[in-house]
């Protein structure tokens, strides 16, 4: 039976059902079910997942100044982004202004997180969807060296370097414990790189692992400690004493110079390793342009990285702000986080209850009442679902919509909006990459485009880091050492009731927190995280979300080994299994694939 969704996708769930359930031991996380036609092309996609839903319960009645410490625990990777969003929400509610230096340091923290996340995502979570590790064993080190030197000036590129690395890798593989490389679909037909490109990519996998250690030292310096840096309503908890000495206490010149040197290394690594790798890998996959989903029609970015403290208007935000609908790149629509008719969450297909489920709720009025029930067409049992019924409730993720529209968020969305606005810092690098690869603009609307946008954004971000670090130094040298405003620290300076919102662009997309404060305590707190936007189930009108849309019409080389599905979902850098990491005693395959 075929149906057409309001957002333009033809769904047909009559074909063979393929279920990919990454973690079966623990309820939920992320699971997708697709129907393929006789040619193994995806004709229906159903994405479901577990999403954090208890923060309002935990935070109610607590001190708003502590909310960041709780929200930081929602997610192991977006820690700093959640904390930043939280302090912005509280400052918005209580009308607290932060000093310029605090804004600059927060931008440096946030940009560092962006760069770190993008690099780790590309090399350690996503690369193996494109790179065949086992194939790297048969590479010719000399040819690998020639390839590496043809695309970059990065010094680690001699034949001897690649020969040593290949030897190490061989030993690792032969020891029978592939470690991070275990459970790959090695040898799958959807891998297109020659052995030499695979070996080069594996080398950079290890170099990136080593280098990311340096990057996070910026968080330690400005956040006081790591993991879990400190944050502060009213500024940053980071005293600066440029005349001080030693490694402990206030941040001094030696620490500031250290940050500066890490930023230089980040620029070099991004431009000499990450981008050339992206381009090299992309050149072998430029015919594989599936996975665009909503990106060619509906994208959204709240924007981030304010140039000026306390100014979150689009003109101050260096990361693009706005919404594109219906593929109309000529018009970028503004977002109002306060407007009850703009951002709303629906639960028609989510395991929650609303008094009236035809309507959505703005986060200030949000409720989270679980209601788990499977639809009549579901197969299996409540605790062991074999197949979901997507016509009924089928996910723990709510469906956020902007003015009723499903949108994609994340690096590709941001990049498309910046491109549509004609901003040269986004348009020029994208045009150059497209030209170099010899593909049209429409190639951007794909899984590969999403992966490329992340790399291009990383390059933008490292230069922004340089800019803000220089801005901080200039401010300090001019004698402005203020990093926090404590005028309204005491709750007796707050109104009896207040509400506010804070937003950021997390590495994986738009993140918003909404807060209500009453008598000095939190009265309501709601978060909408990026993966809620991208991973949302259908809404009352039947619009499918970004994950589901991106899987549509993708051919699978082998439905038993759906590498293509993982590749596209990974390209979103989803943050579903935010918290559970319980150890299990053996090395069983964590992802299972069932074909029915």
């Amino acid at each position: 039976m075929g149906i057409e969704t309001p957002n333009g996708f033809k769904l047909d769930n009559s074909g063979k059902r393929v279920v990919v359930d990454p973690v079966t031991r623990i309820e939920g996380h992320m699971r997708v079910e697709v129907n393929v036609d006789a040619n193994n092309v995806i004709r229906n996609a159903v994405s479901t997942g577990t999403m954090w839903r208890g923060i309002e319960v935990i935070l109610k009645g607590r001190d708003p100044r502590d909310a960041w410490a709780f929200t930081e625990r929602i997610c192991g990777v977006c820690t700093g982004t959640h904390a930043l969003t939280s302090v912005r929400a509280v400052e918005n509610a209580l009308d607290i202004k932060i000093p310029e230096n605090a804004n600059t340091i927060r931008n440096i923290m946030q940009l560092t997180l962006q760069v770190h996340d993008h690099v780790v995502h590309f090399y350690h979570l996503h690369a193996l969807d494109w790179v065949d590790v086992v194939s790297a064993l048969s590479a010719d080190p000399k040819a690998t060296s020639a390839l590496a030197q043809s695309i970059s000036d990065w010094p680690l590129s001699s034949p001897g370097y690649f020969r040593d690395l290949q030897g190490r890798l061989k030993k690792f593989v032969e020891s029978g414990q592939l470690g991070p490389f275990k459970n790959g679909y090695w040898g799958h037909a959807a891998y297109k790189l020659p052995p030499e490109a695979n070996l080069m990519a594996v080398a950079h996998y290890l170099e990136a692992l080593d280098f990311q250690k340096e990057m996070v030292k910026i968080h330690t310096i400005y956040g006081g400690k790591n993991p879990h840096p400190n944050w502060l309503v009213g500024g940053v908890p980071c005293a600066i004493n440029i005349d001080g000495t030693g490694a402990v206490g206030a941040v001094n010149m030696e620490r500031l110079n250290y940050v500066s040197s890490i930023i230089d290394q980040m620029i070099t690594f991004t431009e000499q390793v990450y981008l050339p790798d992206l381009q090299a890998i992309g050149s072998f996959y430029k015919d594989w342009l599936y996975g665009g989903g909503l990106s060619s029609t509906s994208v959204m970015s709240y924007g981030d990285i304010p140039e000026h403290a306390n100014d979150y208007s689009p003109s101050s935000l260096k990361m693009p702000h706005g919404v594109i609908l219906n593929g109309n790149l000529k018009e970028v629509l503004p977002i109002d986080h306060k407007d009850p008719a703009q951002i709303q969450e629906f639960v028609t297909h989510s395991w929650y209850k609303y008094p009236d489920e035809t309507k959505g709720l703005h986060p200030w009025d949000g409720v989270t009442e679980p209601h788990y029930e499977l639809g009549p067409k579901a197969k299996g049992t409540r605790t062991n679902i074999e197949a979901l019924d997507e016509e009924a409730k089928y996910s723990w993720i709510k469906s956020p919509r902007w003015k009723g529209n499903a949108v994609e968020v994340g690096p590709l969305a941001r990049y498309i909006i910046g491109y549509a606005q004609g901003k040269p810092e986004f348009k020029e690098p994208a045009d150059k990459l497209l030209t170099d690869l010899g593909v049209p603009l429409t190639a951007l609307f794909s899984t590969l485009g999403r992966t490329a946008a992340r790399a291009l954004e990383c390059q933008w971000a490292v230069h922004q880091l340089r800019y803000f670090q220089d801005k901080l130094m200039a401010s300090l040298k001019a004698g402005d050492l203020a990093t926090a405003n404590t005028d309204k620290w005491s709750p007796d300076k707050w109104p009896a009731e207040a509400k506010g919102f804070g937003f950021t662009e997390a590495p994986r997309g738009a993140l918003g927190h909404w807060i209500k404060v009453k008598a000095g305590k939190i009265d309501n707190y709601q978060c909408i995280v990026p993966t809620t936007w991208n991973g949302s189930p259908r809404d009352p009108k039947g619009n499918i979300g970004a994950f589901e849309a991106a899987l549509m019409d993708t051919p699978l080389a082998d439905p038993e080994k759906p590498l293509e599905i993982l590749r596209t979902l990974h390209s979103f850098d989803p943050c579903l299994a935010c918290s559970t990491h319980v150890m299990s005693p053996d090395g069983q395959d964590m992802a299972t694939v069932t074909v029915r």
Partner: protein
Amino acid sequence: MPSARAPADSTKPLRGGRRALVLGIGNILWADEGFGVRAVEAFHRDHVLPGDVTVMDGGTQGLYLVNYLEGIDDLLVFDAIDYGLEPGTLKLVRDGEVPKFTGAKKMSLHQTGFQEVLSAAELMGFYPGRLALIGCQPLDLEDWGGPLTQAVAGRIPTAIEAAVAILTEWGYAVGRREAPLAEGEALLGNDIDHAAYERRAETGIGT
């Protein structure tokens, strides 16, 4: 702000140059998932340690925790373990027994288990020489926002005793803390320390 990590100038070799990391991992917001963090928090609250032992709340940092294994010879981890045992069962795992599998088909960074951290450490050439995992079988992982269950919370003192014994065996002098920790010196602050977090859960405010 307090950091449990030893100051940078204490890197001089004390115990034949060996250094230890005591790490608690898990998510405090997900009921028994918080076991590791709550155990290391209590361990730190009650004990004084030599400068070559670092105590860390690793949260759910996943792969990023590999960064803290560099230069570490002896690693002791508290964590929730799914061994399919009775809830609240403690299990001590040593060295090569500590599972090192990783799921390469993970969907996101957050799914990286500690096994992956160990594999990455091995690839990078700083796998710890001695390794001990004090695991506790969880009862409830799905009570989002809930406290540790009694079955798990009640095992924290025993888990800590085991940790003290292992560190002592490894040659690190662990002592009881005489004076209570000053405010601001605890491993977790800003109302997310165990007592403050569960006070809320017990009174049921906001539920």
